[in-house]
């Protein structure tokens, strides 16, 4: 178990990269640090590895205080985004590096090193590349070498910094499934950094969503998707339409012409807020259908199994809707059509001074309008 306790890190120029971050990583889990660039996720990973020193805070690896240990002493496997392979060494020599760097007393003999490296080459499925140099490999192969090299020192903890960031989409998808499989085989504790929410949701046991040097939410992918802890998390997990709104005596009023009743807020006089609707939660209706608002269809794009519609409300605001191919085929839509849309589900976050405890504002409020 790794215990990260109130880590704060400031870079030159006074930029606070990590602001009082605490996190517990359980043994054997695969954890994703997810956030936009500049959220501090890579810095947190580097601090765990000992490549960066925190200004304040402590890190414990099980019972030992690792805060003052150097990267070398922590025995943590680290995989860099751009692989950081040793260019003048063969794949074999790269992987053997960590074993050969051990102090004489614990260093395996030559035959044992060879056996272990061959095992690792087999594990990452690149045995046939042992004598090549990194410049002769593809991106995906290099990443496998980097992974095998990190695993060679038998780390208790494996850290991966945007491991698939530099790869193309297809290789990326294959490799992340394979990583998940590898993790399940080895049972090693793993932390990886990504800015791709799909990747985090698909691969990780738990996802830690970070924003501006803070942890917004740390939970299982399902819980994060279903119960986002903040407006930021809701927005970051996938596409979302954001409608500025006002809540007046229990009714949400938006500029696009949508009104929704929220009985719980009946006592509030007038509060501004934001209403979030996922594209797949927008249902197409005839114009003037009760509970809907009118939009103009500007563009439709077929994306495999689904169709994305670009819509413009009468107020000029652009929205996005997503529907299945089957549903799309029923509708026979034309560009420039006037149609109605209504939310099947929406999430309301109030801005300004609202007593958070009373209204659960930070969590937002889910609204499921009934079809009138």
């Amino acid at each position, binding site marked *: 178990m790794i215990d990260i306790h109130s880590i704060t890190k400031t870079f030159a120029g006074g930029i606070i990269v990590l602001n009082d971050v605490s996190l517990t990583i359980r043994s054997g889990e695969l954890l994703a640090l997810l956030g936009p660039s500049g959220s501090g996720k890579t810095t947190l990973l580097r601090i765990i590895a000992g*490549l960066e020193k925190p200004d304040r805070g402590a890190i414990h690896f099980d019972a030992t205080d690792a805060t003052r240990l150097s990267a070398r002493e922590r025995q943590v496997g680290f995989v860099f985004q751009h692989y950081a392979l040793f260019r003048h060494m063969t794949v074999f020599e790269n992987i053997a*590096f960590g074993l050969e760097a051990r102090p004489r007393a614990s260093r395996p003999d030559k035959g044992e090193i060879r056996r272990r490296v061959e095992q690792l080459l087999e594990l990452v499925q690149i045995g046939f590349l042992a004598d090549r140099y990194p410049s002769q490999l593809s991106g995906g192969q290099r990443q496998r070498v980097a992974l095998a090299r990190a695993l060679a020192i038998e780390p208790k903890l494996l850290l991966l910094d945007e491991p698939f960031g530099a790869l193309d989409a297809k290789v990326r998808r294959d490799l992340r499934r394979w990583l998940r499989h590898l993790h399940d085989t080895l049972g090693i504790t793993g932390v990886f950094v990504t800015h791709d929410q799909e990747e985090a949701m698909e691969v990780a046991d738990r996802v830690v969503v970070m924003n501006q040097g803070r942890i917004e939410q740390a939970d299982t992918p399902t819980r994060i998707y279903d119960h986002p802890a903040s407006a930021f998390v809701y927005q970051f997990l996938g596409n979302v339409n954001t409608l500025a709104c006002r809540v007046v005596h229990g009714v949400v009023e938006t500029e696009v012409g949508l009104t929704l009743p929220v009985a719980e807020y009946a006592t509030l006089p007038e509060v501004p807020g934001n209403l979030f609707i996922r594209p797949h939660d927008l249902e197409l209706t005839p114009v003037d259908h009760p509970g809907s608002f009118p939009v103009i269809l500007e563009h439709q794009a077929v994306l495999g199994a689904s169709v994305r519609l670009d819509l413009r409300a009468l107020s000029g605001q652009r929205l996005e809707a997503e529907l299945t191919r089957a549903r799309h085929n029923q509708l026979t839509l034309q560009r420039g059509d006037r149609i109605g849309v209504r939310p099947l589900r929406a999430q309301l976050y109030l801005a300004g001074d609202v007593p958070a405890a009373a209204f659960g504002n930070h969590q937002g409020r889910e609204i499921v309008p009934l079809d009138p």
Partner: protein
Amino acid sequence: MRTGVLPGFGLTLGLVMFTLSLLVLAPLAGIFIKAAGLSGEAFVAKALNERALAAYRLSFGAAAIAALVDVIAGVLVAWILVRYRFFGRKVIDALVDLPFALPTAVAGIALTSLYAPNGWLGSRLLALGVKVAFTPLGIVVAMVFIGLPLVVRSVEPVLQDIDSEVEEAALTLGASRTRVFRRVILPALLPAMLTGFALAFARGLGEYGSVVFIAGNMPGISEIAPLLIVIQLEQHDVAAATAIAAVILVVSFTLLILINTLQVWRRRRIDP
């Protein structure tokens, strides 16, 4: 042949061959033609006598030692310039090029007055029993001085290019600082160090201006080969001068080809 973005390969190649022939090949060929006029015995007498052999040994030996010192010192200087940000870094950066810009005679006078037995440094070194000026050691000092910028400027860009992540990777794999340097940084720098060595060696071998001031020029002891050529010319023995020149040319050319081959071999291991 691959055509680049810019046209005119034929024209540029022609121009290159023309200038190269005019500036480099023709004069060198001249030396051989002139030297070939000598009979075998005359050649040996003029270019391979006791005094000339001593001069070759001194020139090649001192240039090699100086180039070696330059490589070590040059890597250190480049390391500091690339890896650290400190007050006065820009000044040091500019100072590195000074031996380049200085007329070699000025460098020779400056070094001689500094290292002479009554000089500021020379007198102190003499007290320790080390004589620098007017000895082979003085020659090495002058060659080190003029060769240093070549190594620094060869190594610097390569050092800048070394990804700090590669070092971090080695650290996380449990390597000590010395191991990171020996196994990760040094192999990456080696081709550049070889280039620097070759350049400094060539420069030291050809150096005349600064060396003659500090050398003392005692035949057989501190007389460098280029000086021997000048002496022969002053005595109007052009044949002897070209014979010595031919020997130097052949040896340096062989050495440079050797160093180049070594480099190509190293590079091929990294970027096949």
